[in-house]
């Protein structure tokens, strides 16, 4: 009964803050593998929302549907009042500049230097930056923000996992997106590097006032960054609440996440 109660509190708060991203009844299957079975979500402006779920529960599938990398079977996705499956390619690309996506494995371009990696998102969106924008300065600023200016001419293969993640974050931030989607920002990193990344995420949030959707199964990360958590179980939003509400829950499925 956890779920019901929380939907009420959700509709209570939605009057105060505006919804920047909304998923309704999202369904997605791969053959017989029903990954999402009617998933719902609302992300408010300026909010840090954490999604938790077991490995293979469909978290990555869900955010790939959000940016149109995967086509949902049914359901509606609304981002900043645009319904994404009604957009044409040009409008979709324009909307995508407002959305930063940090991939699970960093996804830096192997064949390009760090500088070229950061330049890449700019090549199609110079107009968004205004004419006077000096690309070189933008890149340097973005790298300074993540403390890796000295790595500007290195290749991704020469970077450690934590450095890659920070460069990927810089690349995500360079277009100053309004919404950032983090797919397991701390996975595969040691606890200390994880803390650094989390710290960076919080700085970004403060500095740019972004709204963030953070996928993780790192409980520490969830505790520090989340304002609200949604648990994704069996393809639906199984439970929802603040970290403390969920961590003290009696529900066995919910408890399992916070051991």
């Amino acid at each position, binding site marked *: 009964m956890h779920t019901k109660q929380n939907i009420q509190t959700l509709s209570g708060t939605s009057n105060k803050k505006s919804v920047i991203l909304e998923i309704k009844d999202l369904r997605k299957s791969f053959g017989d593998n029903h990954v999402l079975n009617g998933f719902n979500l609302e992300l408010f402006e300026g909010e840090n929302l954490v999604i938790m779920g077991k490995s293979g529960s469909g978290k990555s599938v869900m955010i790939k549907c959000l940016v149109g990398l995967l086509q949902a079977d049914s359901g509606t996705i609304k981002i900043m009042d645009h319904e994404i499956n009604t957009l044409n390619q040009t409008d979709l690309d324009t909307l995508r500049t407002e959305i930063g996506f940090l*991939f699970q494995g960093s996804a830096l371009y192997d064949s390009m230097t760090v500088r070229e990696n950061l330049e890449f*998102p700019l090549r*199609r*969106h110079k107009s968004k930056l205004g004419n006077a924008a000096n690309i070189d300065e933008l890149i340097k600023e973005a790298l300074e923000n993540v403390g890796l200016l000295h790595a500007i001419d290195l290749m991704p293969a020469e970077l450690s996992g934590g450095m890659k993640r920070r460069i990927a974050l810089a690349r995500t931030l360079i277009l100053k997106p309004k919404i950032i989607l983090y797919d397991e920002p701390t996975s595969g990193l040691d606890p200390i590097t994880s803390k650094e990344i989390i710290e960076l995420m919080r700085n970004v949030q403060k500095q740019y006032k972004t709204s963030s959707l953070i996928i993780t199964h790192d409980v520490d990360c969830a505790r520090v960054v989340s304002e609200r958590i949604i648990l994704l179980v069996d393809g639906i939003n199984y439970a929802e609440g603040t970290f403390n509400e969920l961590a003290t829950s009696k529900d066995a499925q919910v408890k399992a996440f916070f051991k």
Partner: protein
Amino acid sequence: MSSSSGLKSFFVEIGELTLFASRFFKEVFSRPFEVKELLKQCYHIGNRSILLVAVTGFIIGLVMTIQTRPTLEGFGAESWMPSMVSLSIIREIGPVIIALTFAGRIASGIGAELGSMRVTEQIDAMEVSGTNPFKFLVVTRIVAATLMLPLLVLLGDAIALLGSYIVENIKGEVSFVLYFNKVIKVLEFSDLLPATIKTFFFGFAIALVGCFKGYTCKKGTVGVGAAANSAVVFSSMLLFVIDFIAVFVTDIFFDL
């Protein structure tokens, strides 16, 4: 059972490859054109295979001449050597063997590169950053290979003739001028043109298969190896099919 499902998946694959090719033709003529990336790919592809092509061409020339010479000598017809060797190199052996080495190098290279970009989500990252990855990665590579292979084959042919001349010069004491005079006399437009046209198709097919295998690569590092490997096998096979069609068509038009 297993052989029929193998056959079925073969035809499914042909269908998917055809769709992939039609997507290429749709996107190659529409804006924006990735000119800078295209030039970069031309350079990469040329640079990666030029030495291989040169060495292969040289060896083809040497071997062909060394092996054919005794037969012609038997008839007292060694003065025909330059014409015979140059005809078979330019018409068939040069294009096919050089295209095969090109397939081994370029199809596997593209398959592995795009495959690892696919599994590490670099292709997805490109897509969300507003660049069409099909245009940026696939179209540029296919166009580059289509343009570069004919040039490489011409180069390989020339080096093969040089190799052949060296053998002739040592064994038959033919001068450079005499050798190439004979070559130029026997070679006709109808030898060079169809042979060159088909190399465009070879280059296209090799890069198409490499891109197809890499771009549609399945998750996991096994997938990348499999993509590279099957790209070579599939494109080599396709090469022979195209060669057969080309010879057939040439026969009709030029009446060999």
